[in-house]
Each structure stands twice: as structure tokens, then as C-alpha cells.
């Protein structure tokens, strides 16, 4: 069964078509990079996947659970990291995690156990007591990823998680999430416009002006180090 199955999804803001007949799937253990330039429709797709709003046309299923027919079952199986930060900066790392755990129905004890587990997983165990405000940008992002794992989702959605981070933090986060897919069998959908975050064995989905232009393994789509040029050529603005 696919972790995420999207079929014929279309969405418009008023008269502006933001997504046009988008279909794709992500398997467990697959790291799928959703590559798209600014305005391609990545955040719109994420909003639909997290049911912030629903599309008139199309179907989304998470681990076989239809998002429209069984929203709660589908939401329980996905973890999300939004493009904009959603931490409570005045609360501690542990409190941020506990709050989210409770929203997902975990008991206090269970949530505390899972919190140390996910912090450990993201190499942040020693920061549990710190205020979120005192973390640097890279660690804030990592905390958001840790939080998204609290309820043990099978699918992890990340919308441009490395924006605004320095090279070292970006590399650390990219490596962590690749590890989650490889070692824990998590299905990952990672939106970005930065080609260097993609490794050769990742799946690449190229989204442009609301349409999927290409889907395939990075190494099959373009030769090593050729992905950037390929992506630029595909998404070039028509000069007219």
C-alpha cells in the first residue's frame, strides 16, 4: 500500500488555477522531493494534504485512508512540518512536544517517553529543558520535525524545511530526514526549490505552474550534478 496516494487533484483560488490534475504516490521508505519554483503550488498542495482546505476535484489517501471520507484516520497517520514556524517560542522544548502529543491523544507518560525518543532521534536530547526561543534556527526546525514524529506517523510532509538556515543546519536536517526514510521506513514528501537537497536515489517530482512535469528517480532523470540544469530548463518562464 502506498503511504500517500494523490489522484487527479485540482485546486483554484478564485479564478487562479493553483493545481491542475496532480497525481502521484509515495511508498513507505521513499524520500520524495517535490521540486518547484516559487509559486509552483507546493504550499497549496500541502494545505490540501493536511486538510486545511479541500479541493473540489481529486482524491487524497494516506495509508489507504481517504482524507475526505476518514479525515481523522488519515491525519493520525501523517506528520507535518509547515513552511512557517509553528512553535510556541515561550514554552520549553518538552512543553511544545507534550502539547502536541496530547492533541494526538497521548497520555502524559506516553508523551514524555515519546518526546525523549524523538529528541534522541534528532540528536537534541540535551535540549529538552530549553526554551524554544533560545534555540537557533536549525534546532527549531529539528524540533518541529521531532514534534511531527511524536504520534509515529507513517508519512512525513515537510514544506521547504530548510529555508533560512545556514549550510551546516541544512545539511544536518536533510541528512536526518533521509535517515528517517531509509532506517525507519517513513514515507517522506519534501518540498523544496533547492536541488542540492536531493540525493541520487530520491524520487523527484517536478511541479511547475500547478502541474507535475516529471516524476522519477533523481539519478534516472539527470546525470549526477545535472539535476539543477535540468530543473532550470524545465521550469523556465516562457519568454513571450
Amino acid at each position: 500500500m502506498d503511504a500517500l496516494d494523490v489522484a487527479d487533484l485540482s485546486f483554484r483560488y478564485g479564478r487562479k488555477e493553483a493545481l491542475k490534475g496532480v497525481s502521484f504516490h509515495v511508498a513507505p521508505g521513499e524520500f520524495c522531493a517535490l521540486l518547484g519554483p516559487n509559486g509552483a503550488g507546493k504550499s497549496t498542495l500541502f494545505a490540501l494534504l493536511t486538510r486545511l482546505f479541500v479541493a473540489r476535484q481529486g482524491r487524497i489517501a494516506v495509508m489507504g485512508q481517504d482524507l475526505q471520507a476518514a479525515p481523522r484516520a488519515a491525519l493520525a497517520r501523517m506528520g507535518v512540518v509547515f513552511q512557517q514556524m509553528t512553535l510556541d517560542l515561550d514554552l520549553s522544548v518538552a512543553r511544545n512536544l507534550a502539547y502536541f502529543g496530547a492533541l494526538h491523544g497521548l497520555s502524559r507518560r506516553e508523551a514524555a517517553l515519546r518526546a525523549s525518543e524523538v529528541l534522541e532521534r534528532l540528536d537534541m536530547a540535551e535540549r529538552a529543558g530549553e526554551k524554544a526561543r533560545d534555540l537557533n534556527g536549525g534546532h527549531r526546525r529539528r524540533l518541529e520535525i521531532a514534534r511531527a514524529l511524536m504520534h509515529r506517523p507513517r508519512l512525513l510532509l515537510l514544506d521547504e524545511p530548510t529555508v533560512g538556515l545556514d549550510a551546516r543546519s541544512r545539511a544536518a536536517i536533510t541528512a536526518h530526514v533521509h535517515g528517517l526514510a531509509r532506517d525507519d521506513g517513513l514515507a517522506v514528501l519534501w518540498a523544496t526549490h533547492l536541488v542540492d537537497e536531493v540525493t541520487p536515489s530520491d524520487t523527484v517530482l517536478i511541479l511547475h505552474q500547478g502541474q507535475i512535469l516529471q516524476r522519477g528517480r533523481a539519478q534516472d532523470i539527470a546525470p549526477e550534478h545535472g539535476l539543477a540544469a535540468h530543473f532550470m530548463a524545465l521550469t523556465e518562464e516562457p519568454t513571450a
Partner: protein
Amino acid sequence: MSPYLRAMTAILGREALRFLTQRERFLAALVRPLVWLLVFAAGFRAALGLSIIPPYQTYITYEVYIVPGLVAMILLFNAMQSALSLVYDREMGSMRLLLTAPLPRWWLLFCKLLAGVLVSILQAYAFLAIAYFYGIRLPPMGYVWVLPALLIAGMMLGAVGLFLASTIRQLENFAGVMNFVIFPVFFLSTALYPLWRMAESSTLLRDICAWNPFTHAVELIRFALYLRLNLEALGWVALTFAVFMGLALWGFDPARGMMNRKTR
């Protein structure tokens, strides 16, 4: 514990913790009604004579009269402030996160609303305590009776705020909300003058005040402070809450909804 209660506890707990870390905001919110009480009301005491109207059984000073209105004002300001923080994205991120919880949306929004109201109620009690030391003593049991009144009045105002946040995009800033929501709602109510005084200047004004749901919130609180139940006010407040909660849920319905507003 059921997942519903667990989520509620978490949402209320988060609000309480945020409240503890933002004490300046708490104090700032107290200053407004205190200025009205200590400056405005004191100044007008001589100018405004009041006759005996229910629930009062003796002559009262103007300061005593406006206390329930100022309590309601605290609830009103807080409700509008929460609405604005949603519109302004400060809370929108956390709202998104909240709405991905695997629970019905109406329940999550209800808990969120309740959390805001409980913080307002704490402020209302802080205000009543200061008024007490200033010399405005209410029947001791009134402080208990007023709790449910504050709760339902707060929920009503919170639902109005949630509805505004979900639908009206033009509420660009606090000044806009002040001019078009808070001021008319507050001044066209019985918060500052009883209905009969309004009628002396214009029956139209009186009618508007009598229709204003905020008037009913004020009267519900006023009567409760004197251990009386104003059934009519309760009915109107409950009805207004139901209507605006319904509208807010509609506004947050994923099938239409505010959540696809372009973020700045």
C-alpha cells in the same frame, strides 16, 4: 482519559502557560477598565444621577453602575484581540497545527475559544478585586454567581471574534476593529448608561441598545453579580453564541474557508 478531554486539557494548559509568560499583557488589559472606573466614572458621578432599577435595590453611585459593563468590556477586548492575532498570523501557525489534530474541527475550535475565555475571566476577577479595594463591594455570593455568566458571555464574544477572524479580511488592524466593532458595540449598550437614560435622548438609540447582544451580556453579568438570573439576557446571549459559533464553524470549514488566505 478520552482523546477529546486530553486535547482540551492540553489546549487550556497551553493558554495558561502562555498567559503566565505574558504578564505584561495581562496588566495592560487591566489598565483600560481601571481608567474608566477611576477616572471616567469618578468624574461623571456628580453629573449622572441614577434611579433605582433592577437588580439594584437602593440608590447606587455611577461607579457601581458601570462595573458590570467594564467587566464585559474586558471580555470584549480579549475576544477581539484573539481574533486579530488569528488574522495577523501570529496565531495562525499554531491554529494550522491545531487543526491537523485527529479530532473534529468543531471540538478543537471550541476548546480554543474556551481557553481564551478562561484567561479573560481571570482578568475580570482581577478587576473585580481591585474594584473591591477601591470600595465597590458587591454581595459576596455575587462573585461566585457571576462565574457562569462570565463564561457564557465570554463564549458569545469569543464566537463573534472567531467568526470575524474566519470571514472578514478587511479588519486590517486594531484601529479598524476598535472603530467598527468595539466602539459601537460598547457604546450602544447598557454598559455605560441604563436603557431609560438612552430613551431620554432618542428612542432609536434605546432600541439599538436593547437589540445589541452585548447589552444582554452586560445585563446577564450585572444581574448575576446581585444573585439574580436574567432569563431574557441569558436567552439572547445563548442564542447569539449559537449563531456565531455556527457561522465561525462555517468560516473554518475546509470546504470553503479562511485557511486559504494568502499569508503575508
